[in-house]
């Protein structure tokens, strides 16, 4: 790759390229970021190292409960109606196929929306927002 001078505004002497979180550094795994949209009981999206070969079904079955199971709405999620996004691009997962197959490369962001369960966008019985 050609690194141009434009990539650093100004420098004096050598300026080496050092990508601190290259995929090769994660012991065969890659980082995947996850965000359950509007569910801000989880203050920030989460980050987990996963094997690229992990089937999407295993992500739903084994990984997500570890991440989001504490939320009172989690049990009610209808996975068939869930909408999935690779960053902002919608995709329809094939539960038998791997993360790799879905184009989920290192440091991809998976956002998922659960239409009936809107977390913070829903009002509770006393008229306040949920979380």
């Amino acid at each position, binding site marked *: 790759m050609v690194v141009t001078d434009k990539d650093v505004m100004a420098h004096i002497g050598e300026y080496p390229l050092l990508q601190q979180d290259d995929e090769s550094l994660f012991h065969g795994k890659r980082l995947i970021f996850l965000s359950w949209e509007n569910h801000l009981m989880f203050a*920030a*999206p989460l980050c987990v190292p996963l094997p690229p070969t992990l089937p999407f079904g295993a992500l739903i079955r084994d990984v997500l409960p570890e991440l989001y199971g504490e939320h009172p709405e989690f049990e009610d999620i209808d996975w068939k109606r869930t909408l999935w996004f690779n960053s902002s691009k919608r995709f329809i997962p094939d539960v038998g196929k791997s993360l790799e197959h879905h184009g989920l490369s290192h440091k991809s962001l998976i956002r998922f929306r659960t239409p009936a369960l809107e977390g913070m966008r829903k009002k509770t019985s006393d008229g306040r927002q949920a*979380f």
Partner: protein
Amino acid sequence: MDTRVTKKKLGLKERYAAMTRGLHWETTYQPMDKVFPYDSYEGIKIHDWDKWEDPFRLTMDAYWKYQAEKEKKLYAVIETFAQNHGELGVTDARYINALKLFIQGVTPLEYYAHRGFAHAGRQFTGAGARVAAQMQAVDELRHFQTETHAISHYNKHYNGMHNANHWFDNLWYLSVPKSFFEDAYSGGPFEFLTAVSFSFEYVLTNLLFVPFMSGAAHNGDLSTVTFGFSAQSDESRHMTLGIECIKFMLEQDPANVPIVQRWMDKWFWRGYRLLTLVAMMQDYMLPKRVMSWKEAWEMYAESNGGALFDDLARYGIRKPKGWEQACEGKDHISHQAWATFYQYGHAAAFHTWIPSEDELDWLATKYPNTFNQYYRPRLEHWLAQSKGDEGRWYNQILPMLCQTCQVPMLFTEPGDPTQIAFRETNYLGQKYHFCSDHCCEIFEHEPKKYVQAWLPVQQIYQGNCYPEDINPASPGDSPVREVIRYYGIEGGEDNGDFANSEDRQHFKAWSGRMKPSDLGE
């Protein structure tokens, strides 16, 4: 030939000239450009260094004299404070956690500032600027020292302060201030002064020091108050250096204006993101509150800062790009940050808690448009949960961080507090994520700099933050526990919920505030 008459004593002005600019000379063995290479590579054009107005006509000998007097007073107060068990006179042991945040996250910045100013104090061609930077370098080192001494008394009695230097280099939330300063002092000397002297010390400093120092005053912490007074006269000198440097650059060459404007955009935003920690401290960690973060922002940023940028308009300078978004954030960021620390309270080095009913009501009054609507429900849920069978909830999964500011991605879209803000870019085939347009833009301008970011979450998953006996590829059933061990944090003692803390128990027992009902706890 006339006999030379030496005056016994120089006048103030002459002495100043002799002790600063008089020490400067034009080099002859080597060209000046080679002796001072750092003050040209950033693209800032200086035509006449003599136009530099020395902000404070202070010479080194006078400096030693003033500082020695101030320090004598400060150490007398610290000593008295210790003799009188001042550590028990504070409002509530929860307050001590604000001091932990200070010694962990602010004091190390004083040392970084010392290094940055020592560098600038060597590298400017102009002697006036060099002397001012050198003096500030000494100030910063003193501040590091006096803050450490003032807080060391608390360290004898409370947890969470004993390992601050190691934590600063490793902990996830401390990488926020650390990376801020590393970004600043790895820039050139002009960018460093714009970042630290102007954006941080001139525009934002009141938002850092007022909450901590007034917070100390309101909560009975005399030693921190005295430190604050002692540092105050230094700070006003530092602020003057900041504004002088900006005006000097802007007046020297019109080509400097866009460079300075871009630095202001960048460093206002970097500073603002860093202040998220202070916002949280101010709204949640002071048992006796001074004012809300929102009120502080309105007073110190919106009105004072607004007037400053009106004044700079004659140079062609406008408000920093992130200004509007920062103003909108005043209703949100303290609550978003506390929710983050509450759920990662097992991975920090201070205690967290759910505010009392009164305090929740106070927050609702101060934030009438956001607190009850968006932030109170989850706090009440967590409180109920902690009292139930499940117990207190801790988030066991590490958060996603912004590549630039390194804050967990907790900030929401402008105009929609239900939606986390995501920004993304590609560089050399890799994805990079950001919390905001401004952090993304900072990265895109100098990607080669920010791909080096030492992001704590990424480092943990690479296996760089485990004790030696742990295999990084398979760290066992609780990687977070192992990381905490590596950090040198005593789980449950240095962190966790305040309700169950040693700090709380000790404070009550030692200060005689133990009620009979507490003995059964």
